[in-house]
């Protein structure tokens, strides 16, 4: 039968300063960890959604992103021979040449701060190649018209992107496109974009090329042969699975997450030391109490469990507090500047059950590791010495 929880709780409260500081350290570690994991989960969700198993992104050989890729018309022609390309109801190949440019758009939170929002010029076939794109408000643009539609995430983060608003696009930022619709794309990176008719956009930006070609295959099994062809000698372009392309865009994020994880690891070690310090102080202050418990029949393992439970309770409460603070950011829309495209992706911080489990596991581990040595010292208390020093 364990000691009452009130014993553990009141002992923690009895040393408010050291318990409070340890609480703070663990809560900060959990907060940073949960935000980092939420960030990674949000980014991952955004990329996962843009991970069609039948889509290929074709860029210029050597280009790492659409914004740095130039594909001339004569280079597109051989792509029509790609094996396994799907067709739409009218028999047209699901092959979409697309232009990627950027437009400075003020943020909703601070109108004076503009961000480079990705703008994609597409033909109508693009809606067949990217079937996840669905108009949810208004209508789609009409080819040849200076109209645009905006992704849900882009509208949420940036100002002046409501239906009926006008946005200045073009090389001189002097062509006004009217927003006529809002689209969703299963939360993918496409939702961070503005779409407009490719021919109008090409003219506005005085471009004579496409940035990328997107192919949709009839089945995932057609992928190897299609990639072999696209990357082969007859095309001279570079094709990637859609998921692989966005993963590459996200490489920096993964590096940041990796480095931050190391930092959090170091912070966790520090937190374990803070816990150990607090528990050592608790053991030293309660030597007589420990000796009394041992005298009346509590075994060494019971003494160990007293301090283990105390430590884990402290770190678990701190974990809950850290997660509560992080939860205020949960669902918050963030944006991320890609170092490859120099455009901004919008995504949401995602707090998942796995993240909660990881945070509690880390906090508990910190609590257990921090308490091992002090609890061991408590269990080794020499009863008669401790009673005599009373």
């Amino acid at each position, binding site marked *: *039968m*364990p*000691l*009452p929880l*009130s*014993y553990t709780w*009141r*002992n923690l*409260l*009895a040393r408010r300063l050291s318990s409070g500081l340890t609480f703070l350290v663990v809560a900060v570690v959990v907060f940073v960890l949960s935000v980092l994991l939420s960030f990674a989960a949000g980014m991952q969700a955004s990329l996962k959604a843009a991970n069609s198993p039948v889509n290929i992104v074709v860029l210029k050989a050597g280009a790492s992103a659409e914004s740095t890729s130039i594909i001339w018309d004569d280079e597109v022609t051989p792509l029509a021979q790609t094996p396994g390309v799907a067709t739409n109801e009218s028999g047209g190949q699901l092959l979409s040449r697309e232009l990627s440019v950027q437009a400075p758009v003020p943020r909703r939170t601070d109108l004076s701060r503009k961000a480079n929002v990705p703008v994609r010029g597409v033909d109508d076939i693009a809606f067949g190649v990217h079937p996840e794109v669905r108009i949810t408000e208004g209508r789609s643009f009409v080819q040849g018209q200076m109209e645009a539609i905006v992704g849900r995430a882009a509208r949420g983060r940036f100002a002046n992107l409501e239906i009926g608003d006008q946005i200045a696009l073009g090389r001189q930022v002097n062509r006004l496109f009217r927003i006529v619709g809002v689209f969703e794309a299963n939360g993918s990176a496409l939702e961070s974009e503005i779409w407009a008719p490719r021919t109008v956009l090409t003219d506005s930006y005085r471009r004579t090329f496409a940035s990328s070609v997107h192919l949709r295959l009839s089945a995932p099994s057609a992928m190897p042969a299609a990639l072999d062809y696209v990357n082969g000698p007859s095309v001279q372009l570079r094709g990637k699975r859609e998921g692989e392309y966005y993963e590459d865009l996200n490489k920096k994020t993964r590096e940041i997450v990796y480095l931050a994880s190391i930092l959090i690891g170091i912070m966790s070690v520090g937190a374990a030391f803070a816990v150990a310090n607090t528990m050592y102080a608790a053991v030293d202050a309660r030597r*007589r*109490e420990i*000796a*009394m*418990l*041992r*005298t*009346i*029949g*509590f*075994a060494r393992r019971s003494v160990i469990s007293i301090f283990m439970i105390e430590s884990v309770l402290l770190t678990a409460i701190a974990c809950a507090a850290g997660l509560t603070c992080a939860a205020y950011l949960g669902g918050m829309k963030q944006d991320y500047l890609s170092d490859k495209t120099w455009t901004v992706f919008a995504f949401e911080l995602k707090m998942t059950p796995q993240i909660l489990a990881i945070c509690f596991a880390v906090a508990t581990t910190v609590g257990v590791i921090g308490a091992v040595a002090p609890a061991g010292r408590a269990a080794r208390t020499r*009863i*008669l010495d401790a*009673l005599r020093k*009373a």
Partner: protein
Amino acid sequence: MSAVDIDLRLVRKVYHKGRMNITVLDGLDLSIEGGDFAVIMGPSGSGKSTLLHLVGGLDSPTSGSVRVGDAHLERMSERELTAWRSRHVGFIFQMYHLVPVLTAAQNVELPLLLFRMSSAERRKRVETALEIVGLKDRMDHRPNQLSGGQEQRVAIARAIVTDPDVIVADEPTGDLDAKTSTEILQLLSLLNSEFRKSIIMVTHDPRAAGFGKRLLHLDKGVLERDERHTHPVQPVAV
């Protein structure tokens, strides 16, 4: 539990301090009948606390045997002694050693947590123990809300709540004023006479010794005098 006899035979206890060997008990022979109230006196370093620790299973003799009832303590491992103490001995300390963050009832309940027992049964036993020591109305008070005498009563309740064979008390009145000391000693006397608890008490106070039935004088680890009181101070109901 029924009162049990205590029997020490040729008990030696030697402490090692650096290269020095300090003999605290030197071939002690002693028998205490079940239900007795033995008071141990003697100058500092005479071995009285060591004797108490040996009988209470807190320490083991260097040689000789210590038997309490059927238990041969000198043959037990530390783990066995720990389990034995929880069932057979109640401890009362000079400084009470109550857990400051627990209420009187929770302090008394502590030894019962080592038993397989329902919470209702524990509660009943705690109430009975606190009633015996006259503190049933202070069950929810913390130690810092009690006087020294009341704290010692709670400690006594904690010592008797498991219904042990033996109660060992180390200077139980050493930190109390004369009036409160008398009350505590009367309570111990009551536990001995009414509840047949064997009590072994160490004290420096000759007045406290008057409450015991038997007075043992130790000096330099040897039993110097063994007197039986024909008319110990009679207990007064609490």
